């Protein structure tokens, strides 16, 4: 048995902290966008290529229209919503373009970057090429609790050996606390485990979850062992950021994970398959936000992310289901700081 840290990050919930959390710096932290990207790869065009066969019939006409109609492209900013700074950046980049093929391609990239926004009204989609970015960074978790019970959840990599997930995946109050072990399978695709499975026995969470079981602090991390194979350590990681309320409200976000119901009915349904969906955030509070993305048991710990300049930035960690709106633990400044620390511990 590996002894977990006895001194948990001092992030326990109390009313005072709740107030201060609500007063998190309203400005966008440059650090949130630049310091916490583990991979410098431009992900979105790869994503476009992978999803195109599935989505081309619905998405391409929209993208084409936007590419060929600069005025429409300008409206992407308003489609994106209230994210004025992003819209401004997008527009300033496209304003520099002329109509040569290369520049049309660049404009297509800009539109593709927003693809996850455009197709957000679709239902869940099975991710079949889970070796592509970002899907390979999403892991199915098989959790062996201290009392012998088994559970399944989801996590996502933010560094070489750091997997972020829900607090209730790494500390299960009703099942003995810290699990005996968690098997982490990055990019599992039904019967195929493209990067194998790594057994982890080191976990992290915060006092607000471990001691107080507060839904407001339901997040944690798995630190993969030092002998984790190189192909797992080189998968790259999601970026993460803490955003003010006005940028979160109505923001289109993505969620992908491993639902216990194996996805929606149809030929794509399979045990251990990864499913993605996107919707707008519908409400924001100081410690979590909610959305109408369909989830079921097994998806706790899934990343809830957006795309900025081709980088995927996790804004929350999916934790709860509810008919009135599923929800994620919001990445606030204290959460952000802990994620950075845990990433360092797994570097």
């Amino acid at each position, binding site marked *: 048995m590996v002894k977990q840290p006895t001194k948990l990050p001092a992030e326990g919930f109390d009313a005072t902290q709740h107030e201060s959390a609500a007063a998190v710096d309203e400005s966008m932290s440059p650090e949130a966008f630049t310091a916490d990207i583990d991979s410098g790869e431009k992900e979105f065009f790869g994503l476009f290529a992978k999803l195109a066969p599935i989505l081309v019939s619905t998405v391409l006409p929209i993208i084409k229209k936007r590419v060929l109609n600069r005025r429409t492209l300008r409206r992407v900013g308003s489609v994106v919503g209230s994210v004025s700074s992003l819209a401004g950046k997008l527009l300033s980049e496209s304003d520099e373009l002329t109509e040569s093929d290369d520049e049309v391609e660049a404009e297509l990239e800009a539109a593709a970057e927003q693809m996850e926004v455009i197709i957000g009204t679709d239902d869940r989609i099975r991710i079949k090429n889970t070796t592509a970015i970002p899907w390979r960074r999403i892991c199915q978790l098989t959790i062996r609790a201290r009392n012998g019970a088994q559970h*399944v959840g989801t996590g996502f990599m933010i560094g070489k050996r750091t997997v972020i997930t*829900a607090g209730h995946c790494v500390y299960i109050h009703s099942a003995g606390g810290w699990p005996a072990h968690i098997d982490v399978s990055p990019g599992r695709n039904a019967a195929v485990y493209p990067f194998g499975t790594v057994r982890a026995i080191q976990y992290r969470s915060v006092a607000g979850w471990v001691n107080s079981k507060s839904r407001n602090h339901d997040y944690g991390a798995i630190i993969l062992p030092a002998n984790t194979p190189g192909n797992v350590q080189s998968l790259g990681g999601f970026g993460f950021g803490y955003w003010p309320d006005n940028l979160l409200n109505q923001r289109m976000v993505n969620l992908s994970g491993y639902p*216990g*119901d194996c996805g929606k009915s149809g030929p794509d349904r399979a045990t251990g398959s990864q499913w993605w969906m996107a919707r707008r955030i519908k409400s924001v*509070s100081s410690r979590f936000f909610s959305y109408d993305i369909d989830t079921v*048991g097994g998806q706790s710990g899934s990343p809830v992310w957006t795309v900025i300049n081709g980088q995927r930035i996790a804004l929350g960690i*999916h934790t709860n*289901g*509810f008919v009135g709106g599923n929800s994620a633990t919001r990445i606030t400044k204290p959460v952000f700081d802990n994620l950075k620390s845990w990433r360092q511990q797994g570097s």
Partner: protein
Amino acid sequence: MTASDAVPNTSRDGTVVGRVLLNGRAVPEATVMIVEGHTSHPDLAALTDDHGGFVLGGLDAGWYNLEARLGDRVARRSVELAAGEHVTVTFTL
């Protein structure tokens, strides 16, 4: 602090325990999960053990739709939990 910030001070001590059976025999490695809950709940699924047993804990009082699944075999049940209540459910696939 807004109204939506207020988190009910609930116990989260409710538990659903049970077994998954097929033709009267225990089914290991079946997945049991909440597919719909009228109370916010952890989206964690359970895997049955060698005896077909499972535990879903950390639940608030409320009404839940549960599903047990092994491949294409599915069974569904609804339960209503009181605060801190332990309910036993048997699924037959």
